[in-house]
């Protein structure tokens, strides 16, 4: 029987693409969530200042 390496490579490449895609989706979702949290207003109701607008830390 011929080895059919093309089919073997296709199966493993497809699995790598699916698992890799899911992993990347998890990473992206985590980043989006972190970004949306950093833009949320603070509990006092006042909007949190953007990092550039915050005063620098005192030495």
């Amino acid at each position, binding site marked *: *029987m*011929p080895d059919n390496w093309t*089919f073997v490579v296709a199966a493993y490449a497809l699995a790598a693409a699916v698992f890799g895609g899911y992993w990347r989706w998890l990473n992206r979702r*985590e980043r989006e*969530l972190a970004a*949306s*949290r950093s833009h949320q207003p603070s509990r006092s109701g006042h909007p949190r200042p953007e990092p550039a607008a915050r005063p620098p830390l005192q030495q």
Partner: protein
Amino acid sequence: MSTALGWLAAVALTAGLVMGFGVAPLELTQGNVQRIMYLHVPAVWVAYLAFALGLAGSIAYLAGRRPGADRVAHAACEVGTVFLGVNIATGAIWGKPTWGTWWTWDARLTSVAVVFVMFIAYLLLRQAVEDRERAARYAAVLGIVAALNIPLVHFSVYWWRTLHQPPSLLKPGSSTMPPAILAALLVNFAALALLGAYFVTRRARLLAAEEEALA
């Protein structure tokens, strides 16, 4: 914890590839195309485990209405669907050179396709219902019904005449598989199980963070 699990899965997947392509011998009847088995079979075992976890989480949620149980069920069913999708796709790729067809509506393939569609419906249901408590309740019921179909998938090869071969390992009695092939299969199962556990852990954590952000 999930980072360590991820690295462990990466190492195990590398070991699985070495076992599947370097250690396991050439199968005499099918040739190298049989090496798809080291991916196809462990993928469905991990999907079964994930759906069993989803079943337990769904029952626990209906019994106690704990959001943590719902998150575990959601994460496990989603990851199980990913693994089942890989199992179906790699099975089709393996079927073409060995059976001469990508797909046939025999009992095993049809029953596994039904379970896959049910879990796709489970994930769509979660997106479709606005109220989170109602979505969790409906999804728990559907998750239980879908998971109860898995024995039907497993035993379909005994109950009906199918093109798909009967199980070589998950059956009564000892395995007739050569030790090197069996070892490669088990290493790949361990690797995919670690990958599945890593995905479920991360997804459940992400769901908790999403709920916290919405609260």
